[in-house]
């Protein structure tokens, strides 16, 4: 007799069990069980990243070209395409595990992945993009310690008026708001605390609110969190709001990755069933985990965290607030809100002081979000007289051009290849990711991994190195096709055409050779082409050329490891004097922190978002032409890359 429910045991490598109904697919069962399995396509069966091994039991799997004959014999199936028809034991191989939690602190210290995971020390001691005193200190939440005069027969003003009077003696705040919750507590609180209280003031949408009133002097305990919510990575920074001191930074992968690797597939997912709910909870879980880890490490009371400032692309901001993002991807591509009012963090599900505030950095358009506004602020693009370009290399590559007089932005859908997705042995930039590659003229290959760990895969900067080396050593032609007819141990025929072996499996931390395939090269070529073409079109629209740009900021997941020369060699970046380029790392997080700490910075961010013009590339006829000419190494117009020489 058929049981109605079955037990699935996931080994990853520890065992996690879950009861499911017959016919449940393994991927959603894993999500329900809290086992994180890679998936770029959100369960459509096309990305092939959720491979698991059936050790025992009966599952029914849709056939997939992503599983090789050899793998099939070993019991591999795609989790999203397999349904359960008995109790089963499932092994989640290392390559399919989405290690969400493990990159936190240890890796951060080890890897110093400036850019994605900046340590506080990096930001403080490293090159500061913002000089210290640009913005006057004026955080989103301030605390005031007040010793109120006790009422008497000659001073009979009410408790609330008394509080306002005391505040106005210190600060010129004409309009103050207070909620009923606070008013109800005032009478007893003032008398029990002997008229010595600390008031928490929050800046809310042009007015000031008495967020809470506490007995005694707690004014020294006032903390805030700056957040950067990326499609791939969520980073948070704990800041002392009184002293502006950065106390710690933590990062984690965005758990939404299980539901699709790019914003579009997540918007699609949000529209299905409880998709929006799931996406919202995923990122809220991320944020709460980061905040909790931060306060624990610094032995801070969660109730003393009073404000959160969050920068993210438009879709991320919608999902954070559980606002339906559906219309973002429908013509004419309009978002629900780019300027989100300050709300209580608890309304979004963020666990800090229950009355603490949540503010979002304003965005420019549907595809240029608050992360870019924050990045522009952090780089000071809006304050410089030099012609400046900022490129945020991500799945949705954003480009901003301008100076103190004007700003123009555009977004290029570059795809996730440089973030290690949609490429055969791609991975995100964590321990074991190949990030530097050198190929000798004889074909000897050397790789350097993050954390000096045994190689597991290739991250963005590794792919850039790899492409540049393969091209310069004549192993691939300008079109990205392997140019040698003769095959050898490293250049060989794989399942998807020719491929180059970077690391053989005996030297790797995975049970396959780490390769770059002709299809990978094609994907990477498209990504770099999209970014270059978008930059180029943006300039052309303004009657400018790359040579007019005086400084060039690059933000995103490459961090300190982006080799500029190699990025120029493959045509990702224009062939300019190398000293014009600087890496700004996670400019979004830095900007978000500045805005948290200064209402002036916040005003400036709003001014940036309002002032920035958005150019929609999908309606630019010349874009396709630029794009195709950029689909070449380094470019079809070789005269644009005079410094790039082969062999």
């Amino acid at each position, binding site marked *: 007799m058929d049981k109605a429910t079955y037990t699935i045991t996931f080994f990853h490598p520890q065992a996690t069990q879950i009861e499911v109904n017959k016919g449940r697919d393994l991927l959603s069962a894993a999500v329900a069980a809290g086992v994180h399995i890679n998936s770029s396509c959100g369960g459509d069966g096309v990305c092939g990243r959720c491979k698991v091994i059936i050790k025992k039991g009966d599952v029914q799997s849709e056939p997939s070209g992503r599983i090789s004959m050899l793998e099939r014999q070993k019991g591999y199936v795609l989790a999203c395409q397999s349904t359960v028809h008995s109790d089963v034991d499932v092994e989640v191989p290392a390559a399919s595990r989405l290690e969400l939690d493990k990159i936190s602190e240890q890796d951060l210290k080890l890897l110093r992945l400036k850019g994605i995971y900046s340590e506080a020390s990096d930001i403080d001691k490293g090159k500061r993009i913002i000089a210290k005193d640009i913005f006057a200190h004026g955080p989103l939440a301030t605390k005031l310690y007040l010793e109120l005069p006790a009422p008497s027969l000659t001073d009979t003003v009410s408790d609330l008026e008394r509080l306002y009077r005391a505040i106005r003696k210190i600060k010129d705040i004409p309009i103050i708001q207070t909620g009923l919750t606070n008013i109800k507590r005032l009478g007893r609180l003032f008398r029990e605390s002997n008229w010595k209280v600390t008031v928490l003031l929050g800046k809310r949408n042009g007015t000031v609110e008495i967020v809470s009133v506490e007995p005694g002097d707690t004014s020294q305990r006032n903390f805030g969190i700056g957040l950067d919510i990326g499609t791939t990575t969520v980073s948070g920074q704990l800041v002392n709001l009184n002293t502006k001191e950065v106390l710690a930074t933590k990062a984690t992968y965005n758990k939404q990755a299980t539901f699709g690797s790019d914003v579009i597939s997540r918007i699609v997912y949000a529209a299905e069933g409880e998709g929006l709910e799931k996406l919202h909870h995923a990122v809220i879980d991320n944020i709460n985990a980061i905040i909790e880890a931060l306060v624990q490490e610094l032995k801070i009371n969660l109730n003393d965290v009073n404000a959160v400032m969050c920068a993210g692309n438009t879709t991320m901001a919608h999902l954070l607030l559980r606002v339906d993002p559906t219309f973002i991807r429908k013509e004419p591509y309009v978002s629900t809100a780019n300027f989100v009012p300050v709300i209580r963090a608890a309304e979004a599900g963020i666990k800090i002081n229950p009355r603490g505030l949540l503010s979002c950095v304003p965005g420019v358009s549907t595809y240029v979000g608050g992360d870019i506004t924050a990045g522009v602020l952090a780089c000071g693009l809006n304050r410089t007289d030099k012609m400046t370009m900022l490129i945020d290399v991500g799945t949705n590559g954003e480009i901003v051009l301008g100076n103190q007089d004007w700003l123009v932005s555009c977004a290029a859908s570059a795809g996730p290849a440089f973030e290690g997705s949609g490429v055969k042995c791609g991975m995100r930039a964590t321990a074991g990711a190949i990030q530097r590659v050198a190929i000798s003229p004889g074909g000897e290959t050397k790789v350097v991994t993050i954390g000096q760990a045994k190689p597991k895969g290739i991250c963005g900067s590794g792919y850039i190195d790899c492409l540049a080396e393969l091209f310069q050593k004549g192993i691939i*032609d*300008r*079109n990205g*096709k392997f*140019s040698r*007819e003769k095959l050898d141990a490293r250049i060989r025929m794989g399942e998807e055409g020719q491929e180059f072996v970077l690391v053989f499996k005996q030297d790797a931390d995975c049970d396959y050779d780490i390769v770059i395939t002709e299809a990978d090269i094609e994907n990477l070529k498209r990504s770099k082409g999209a970014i270059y073409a978008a930059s180029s079109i943006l300039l052309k629209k303004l009657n400018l050329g790359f040579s007019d740009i005086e400084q060039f900021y690059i933000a995103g997941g490459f961090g300190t490891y982006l080799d500029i020369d190699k990025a120029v060699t493959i045509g990702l970046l224009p062939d300019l004097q190398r000293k014009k380029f600087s890496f700004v790392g996670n400019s979004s997080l830095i900007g978000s922190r500045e805005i948290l700490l200064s209402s002036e910075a916040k005003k400036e961010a709003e001014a940036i978002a309002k002032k920035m013009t958005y150019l929609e590339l999908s309606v630019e006829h010349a874009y396709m*032409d630029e794009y*195709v*000419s950029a*689909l*070449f190494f380094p470019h*079809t*117009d*070789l005269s644009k890359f005079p410094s790039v020489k*082969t062999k």
Partner: protein
Amino acid sequence: MSVELLKEKWSNTINSLTIGATKEQGGSRTSIITAGGESTLPYLFSEGEMPHRPVIAMEIFDVEPTDWPPVLKEPFKDVLNNPVEWAKKCVNKYQAQSLCLKLQGAHPDFGNLSADQAAATVKSVLGAVGVPLIILGCGNDEKDAAILPKCCEVAKGENCLFGDATEKNYKTLTAACLADGHNIIAESPIDINIAKQVNILISDMGFDLNKIAINPTIGALGYGMEYAYSIMERARLAALSGDKMLAMPFICFVGQEAWRAKEAKGPQAEHPQWGPEAERGPVWEATTAVSMLVAGADILVMRHPQAVAIVRGTIEKLMEK
């Protein structure tokens, strides 16, 4: 008072490409042709020169074509299954200056002839006529990689024009043409960037830019011809302005495209209002050809003798200064 017309001054010249080699040049051709060499946009003689008049090559197949309409087969009906006789008829009866031999029979779907069989055909056509030869593979990359090097080898010294090299398959053909001293056709899908990319890829292998012809891919009258026209015009403007990677003569496969059009081959019985196809077809081909000439075509590959005659006359008139 007369108005002085503004004249464009170009900084670059289109390469001159020579097909064929006489006995003195190491071949066995009785005539050779040279295409390209323009220093002006087409036929603007006041701005520059067109030292060589556009060339028409008549297209022949190594096996009997299966998709040619009766109107097109009619003039060649006695020779369609014999490439040598077909070649002779084109030269002797229709005064072809050049021939384009398509090795269709090598295609797996059209006979799957071997490399040796294809090479033998090339050899016998070369032996039968004295005009220079353009030689095309069957269009199947794998098969072309097998037959074309062999054909290059047997035609060594004859300075033929071989095609087509695309960004996917260019390596084998480029290597073969390089080894045996032939010219090459670089094909791209109506895309100026890819046209340039294929040229760069071929020249990266050490191939002489002067021995490359661009096949920009065209559409027939009514089938996107304007699109092809503007790509050719843009490429020519870029070339004359100094882009050496686009400064090659154009070869346009007019016959192949025009005779695909329903308006060219559709019988009058089905389309009574269109008039007799015996006139309509050749005129369709000729109109397409003339449009390409105006866009900058240097070599036209054509099929119907009547269309060839019309276009030959048009070239005479266009070249009058």
